[in-house]
């Protein structure tokens, strides 16, 4: 069983303070962390390997410092880690990113299962997992809350939906994205961290994975961010509602109706 887990290093969006004057969040040079949703995919990969045998590889596309995140997952117990890093990869949107990751998975060869976290906390799109499946023309399952069975040819999973869940079987090789309900991720051990410091993490470039240059980076991305705006500024005054409970309830509902909330 060869399992690949795709991970991403992201800025810690929670690493914020509130400016006491403006009462707005101040993002001071947010540090880079392993995308928290990916820890569930890593844990699942490790548990599946321990149960069914085989190996788990971690794969990531990012700038050179993304290597830190890969070292962290080595400390968690994955067998190998590979970094895809090059100036030409930079600026890739989800289409281009899933294309590059798909090419890398092809190069790794004989992969049975690809695991991804539900989404990345910076982009929040949840598009890369299904994107990889589409580039590879493999089966997929998203929002997986449990892996019920894994054989050499089939995986049976429980998929979460807003209105319940379903159980389906997918022919391997396949791509799965997982949700928090699937497991409780471990934290890296000291032994694991110390061992990971000595590990080699190969860096793959566009030529190593045979990508078409027109399909990667900023130029290869169908979507482009054209503007970044501050969200509407926080009000300056608070609207007070007081009186009897009846009056308060009525006034509040009136406000909510006026703002199209109910």
């Amino acid at each position: 069983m060869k399992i690949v887990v795709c991970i991403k290093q992201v800025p810690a969006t929670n690493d914020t303070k509130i400016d006491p004057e403006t009462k707005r969040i101040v993002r001071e040079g947010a540090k880079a962390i392993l995308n928290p949703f990916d820890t569930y995919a890593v844990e699942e990969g490790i548990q599946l390997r321990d149960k069914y045998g085989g190996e788990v590889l971690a794969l990531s596309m990012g700038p050179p410092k993304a290597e830190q995140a890969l070292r962290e997952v080595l400390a968690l117990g994955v067998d190998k880690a590979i970094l895809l890093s090059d100036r030409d990869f930079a600026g890739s949107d989800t289409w281009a990113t899933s294309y590059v990751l798909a090419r890398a998975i092809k190069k790794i060869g004989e992969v049975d299962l690809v695991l991804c976290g539900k989404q990345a906390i910076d982009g929040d799109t949840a598009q890369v997992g299904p994107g990889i499946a589409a580039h590879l023309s493999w089966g997929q399952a998203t929002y997986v809350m449990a892996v019920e069975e894994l054989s050499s040819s089939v995986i049976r999973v429980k998929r979460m939906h807003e209105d319940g869940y379903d159980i389906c079987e997918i022919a391997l090789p396949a791509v799965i994205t997982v949700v928090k309900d699937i497991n409780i991720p471990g934290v890296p051990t000291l032994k694991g961290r110390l061992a990971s410091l000595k590990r080699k993490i190969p860096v793959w470039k566009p030529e190593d994975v045979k990508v078409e240059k027109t399909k990667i980076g900023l130029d290869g991305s169908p979507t482009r961010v054209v503007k970044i705006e501050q969200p509407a500024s926080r009000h300056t005054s608070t609207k007070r509602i007081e009186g009897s409970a009846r009056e308060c309830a009525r006034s509040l509902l009136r406000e909510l109706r006026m703002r199209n909330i109910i």
Partner: protein
Amino acid sequence: MKATTEFDKKKYRNIWVIAELLSGKIQTVTYELIGVARNLADLRNSEVWVIVLSSKLEDNLELLFAYGADVVIILDNKEFFGFIDEMESKILKRLIVKYKPETVICGATSRGRALIPRVAVMTHSGLTADCTGLSIDPKSGDLLQTRPAFGGNIMAIIRSSNYRPQMATVRPRVMKMPEPNHARTGRIIKEGIFNSDIKNIKKIISVFHDTETAVNLADAQIIISGGRGMQGKKGFDLLKRFTEKVGGAALGASRAAVDAGWISYAHQVGQTGQTVQTKVYIACGISGQIQHLVGMQSCDLIIAIDQNPHTPMMQIADIAVIGDLFEIIPEIIYDITEL
């Protein structure tokens, strides 16, 4: 598909909405998106097409026209039972290649978010997820997609200038329901499934529908959150009833309430819990310690209900309701029931 010249782009016309179905019934988000699509189509001088992939359709397609559709493409086949993303995406790709829509929008639901990214790769299109705004650039006619990023701290505007169709997903309840006009009609196109669509990659073993669906904090449009002022588990039972009355609301809590054992940690909002960025945050009996504020500052509208008008939460709130929670909330619940 790449489309860099005016000539190429002109081949793509009309705004498509991929309908969201559950047990044969068309979901509200579909009508919300038809409303948006109608506005876009009017600006583009084109039509709104709704694509329905259903198994045993139990709904009236005429309603789609009433809400603003001009054309409905329907494929009704037992193969669509359950959710087979590989098959549905193949079919959608085929329809997109055949009919060449300019824009495709879909609900950002568990199914939509599984399906559309796959389709976008197959048709080599730009896709923007969880848009909070969709508009047309007057100069180029391109779709402008607005969405929050970095935990809601910024709004990004995204464009797919050189690829068609342009794709976007939108979460339920983000767009307003349009007013139906039951005099409107439209055309129905019946399409079929090819044998090659059925790939046997996935098999549905069983489907389970939850009668009670708990909305989670990350997806909710409205969060009703309780703190020390709720005084105990009973207070949170009251808040739970409140969330159930307000559709699509999730229950949140401050650290004090979780530490007191009144509600589980999964509901904790704040620096050592979850950070949320919803449309509406209603803080009930929460004083507003900085660790809590950090977790909900990004919410669009903050409402605080408390006996004490001077707490930090009451001061940063957009609307501060001063009074007894245990009298006001039942009144609100009563009023909503009456609506």
